[in-house]
Structure formats: C-alpha cells, structure tokens
C-alpha cells in the first residue's frame, strides 16, 4: 500500500509469480485466456483433452487419431516429441539440474558436430529436428523407412557400450510398426567414450539397419553365412574385421576412423594415428 496526497492506493505486482510448468512439465499458456499447455511442436487444450494441431508424425502412429494425447492413455504414456533420433535417455538431469551422463553427451555432441557424423545421423533424422544446435532440414532415408535411433547413457564403468533393436521387444518392431535401434554408452575417459559411440553406431547400429532393410526383419541376413553361426555378440565384429580388409573398407574403418582421428586431436589420447587405428580393433570376437 502507498499513501499519496492522503489517498490510499493499493499497488499490486505487475506479474504474479506463479509456477507455470504444469502437466508433464509443460508450460501453461494462460495469457488472454488461452488456457493451453505448450508442448514443443503444438499446444494441448486440456479443456477438451486434445492437441490443437495434427501430430507431425501422424504417419508413424497411424493407429491413433492425429490429435490424440499420449495415445489416449495419459496414465501409462507420456507425450513425446516423436523425433526419429531419440536423445531423451541421454540428456537426463539430476535433482541439482546437472546432466548425469556428461561424458556421453560430450561424445555425442562431438560426433554430431563432425561433418561425417552429421551426415550419417541425418539418415535417421526427421525434418525439423534440432539436436545440439544443428537443425535437420529433411526427413532422412532411414526415418522414412520406419527406423528410429535412440541414445542412452549408463553409469561410469569400463567404457563399454551396447546396441540392440527394440530392447523391450527383443528385436521386433514397436506397436507402431517402427524399429527402434537403441545404443547405450557408459561414461568414462572422453576419447574412449567417443570411440565406444563410434563403434556402436558404425559397426552395430548400421548393420542392424541394413539387416532390417534388406528383407524387413532382423535375422542376420546381411552377415556372411559362415559368420552367422558365431555368437550373437560377435557376428558383427567378425564381419567388420573381414569387410574392413576390402578395397572400399567400411563405415567404421573410413568415416569412423576420420571421427576418431579428429577426437584424438582434441583429447590427445594417442601419440599418432597408427595407435588410434589399432585401438579401434580391441573388441571381443
């Protein structure tokens, strides 16, 4: 309250401090009586329980209406951005608002900021997706074919990583008919984490994609017949070692090597490129 020429005037703060991040952590837009929840690409009208625009990935979720929210099951599902390169399991924060998987994020952003890394990930990207400051302008070839690529972190360990297809569906497509290739990376030394990420993308994820695309299922059909008998964890490794000896090499032995040479320049792990090359082949057969 203020006193002015014997008149008492009530002064209210211009903006009331109201916490606006409501349902599923989205900002509530209540100016001018809008009453919408602002999601990344469209707004949710909670009065009618629907979005006000169609899902930009409605073709991926053909079994649902394009206006649905959380598959009409908000107790079981949360609404996701629906992009084809999924990083929500990588960019996770702790209670103090710090990223948990710092070295994995560093490696991922290093990878995506190289020309070769960007070019490769653009195969999976959906039009309009923005990752680490880079905007993908077109739908990638693999995105159009129904394949998503997901990145996740694991606590620090022995710089290991793993790659699987639809880990909850044991190699089968998801309910929406799309395959999800999931890469998990442990934290640790910066160069080693980058090396693991490069290994998982170029040796395993790429071979899984090509295995699916050649006949529609994951069945080792792109592995030489004599190597299909090898243990499942090793079949890609044997194939990689064999293919890298061919004239044109492989994605891992060409693009992967380029990325790791650049990584070594930054992190100075090895004295020379020969050692970088040799470090790329220390895995289980």
């Amino acid at each position, binding site marked *: 309250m203020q006193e002015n020429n014997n008149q008492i005037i009530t002064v209210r703060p211009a903006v009331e401090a109201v916490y606006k991040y409501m349902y599923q952590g989205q900002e509530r837009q209540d100016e001018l009586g809008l009453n919408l929840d602002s999601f990344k690409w469209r707004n949710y009208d909670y009065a009618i329980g629907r979005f006000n625009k169609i899902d930009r990935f409605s073709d991926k979720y053909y079994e649902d209406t394009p206006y649905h929210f959380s598959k009409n099951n908000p107790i079981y599902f949360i609404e996701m951005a629906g992009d084809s390169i999924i990083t929500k399991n990588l960019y996770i924060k702790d209670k103090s608002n710090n990223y948990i998987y710092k070295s994995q994020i560093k490696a991922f952003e290093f990878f995506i900021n190289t020309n070769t890394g960007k070019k490769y990930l653009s195969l999976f990207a959906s039009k309009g997706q923005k990752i680490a400051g880079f905007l993908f302008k077109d739908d990638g070839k693999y995105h159009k074919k129904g394949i998503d690529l997901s990145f996740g972190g694991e606590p620090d360990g*022995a*710089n*290991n*990583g*793993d*790659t*699987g*297809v639809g*880990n909850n569906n*044991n*190699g089968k497509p998801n309910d929406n008919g799309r395959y999800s290739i999931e890469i998990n990376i442990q934290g640790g030394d910066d160069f*080693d984490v980058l090396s*693991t990420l490069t*290994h*998982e993308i170029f*040796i*395993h994820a790429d071979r*899984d994609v090509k295995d699916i695309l050649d006949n529609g299922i*994951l069945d080792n059909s792109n592995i030489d017949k004599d190597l299909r008998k090898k*243990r*499942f*964890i090793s079949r*890609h490794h*044997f194939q990689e*070692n064999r293919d*890298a*000896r061919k004239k044109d*090499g492989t994605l891992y*032995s*060409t693009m992967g*090597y380029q990325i790791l040479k650049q990584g070594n320049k930054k992190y100075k792990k090895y004295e020379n*490129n*020969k050692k970088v*090359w*040799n470090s*790329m*082949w*220390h*895995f*289980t*057969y």
Partner: protein
Amino acid sequence: MKTIKKYGILCGILLINLFLSNCKKNTNIELEISTSGCYKNCSILDAKLINNILYFNFIKNNKYVGLYKYKLNKNESNKIISLVNSIQSDSLKKEYTSHISDIQTYNTKLKYKDKIKNVFYFNNSAPKEYQNLINFVLNLKKKKLSKTDTVIKFQTRNKVKIINLPPPPNPNK
C-alpha cells in the same frame, strides 16, 4: 531324571547329525563359470566351486592373471545354498540369448543333488535367481585370494572361446 538326560543326549545327537548332513549337502554343490569379454573391458575369467573352495582363472581385464583360490566361510556357503535353493532348476533352459550386441555372456554348469544344469546366457537374460547365484560367486573374486598351482580343468570355457584377430591393415594412415 535319568530318562530326561538320555532324551536330551539323543536330541543333541540328532541335531548334530542334522547340522552335519546340511554341511554335507553344501559340499555337493559344484559350480563352474566362464565369462566372455564384452565390447571393451569386461572381466574374462573362469571360476569353479568344489568342496567350498572357489578357484579363479583370471584371463583378461582383472586385477590378477592366473590361478587363484578362495576358501568360503560358513556365511558364504550358506548364502550359496540359499541362492541355489531359490532357483527353479526344472524350468531352467540351456540357453538364454539376446539380440543385443556387445554385452557379456556366461557359460555355466551347476551340479547339485545329483542334478546337472548347463546354462549359457547373455547378461540380464537368464532368470534373476540364477544370475544372482552367478553374480554372488563371481563377486567373491574381490576377497583376499591366494595363488595356487592346483591344476583345474574348466569345461565351460569351450563355449566361450577367446579369439584374437589382428587389426585390418590401415588403409589411410
């Protein structure tokens, strides 16, 4: 009074026998494990439990290299018995595989009460109770071990062979 004493002695003998028979059961547990590598630095080793002595053959990515042994204490023996008893051995499969690349695999052989179970599995794909047993035994490698010259044959290693391929030639140095 004398009858009560006699009865007490009898009960005592019975209890001791019961205890001894339990101990005897424990010595009948035989377990053998061989681990594969994974993408980078998983511990590759063989382990064999016979008569409450656990032998480790450390191969790669371990604190030690070579053959070591560890004598289980009573608590550890009892824990192993309870873990073995928690397994539904009749429903155990011979193989639990996964489509995931780069994870560690385990080849195991469990002998208990005249039953033999051979189980090969990818990490996190076998029944929890079975994995708990294997993990408990493998974690005993962190105890104080002593080097040994005993010759131990690890049959489970055959299925998880260690292969070293040379790197391909560097195409663009």
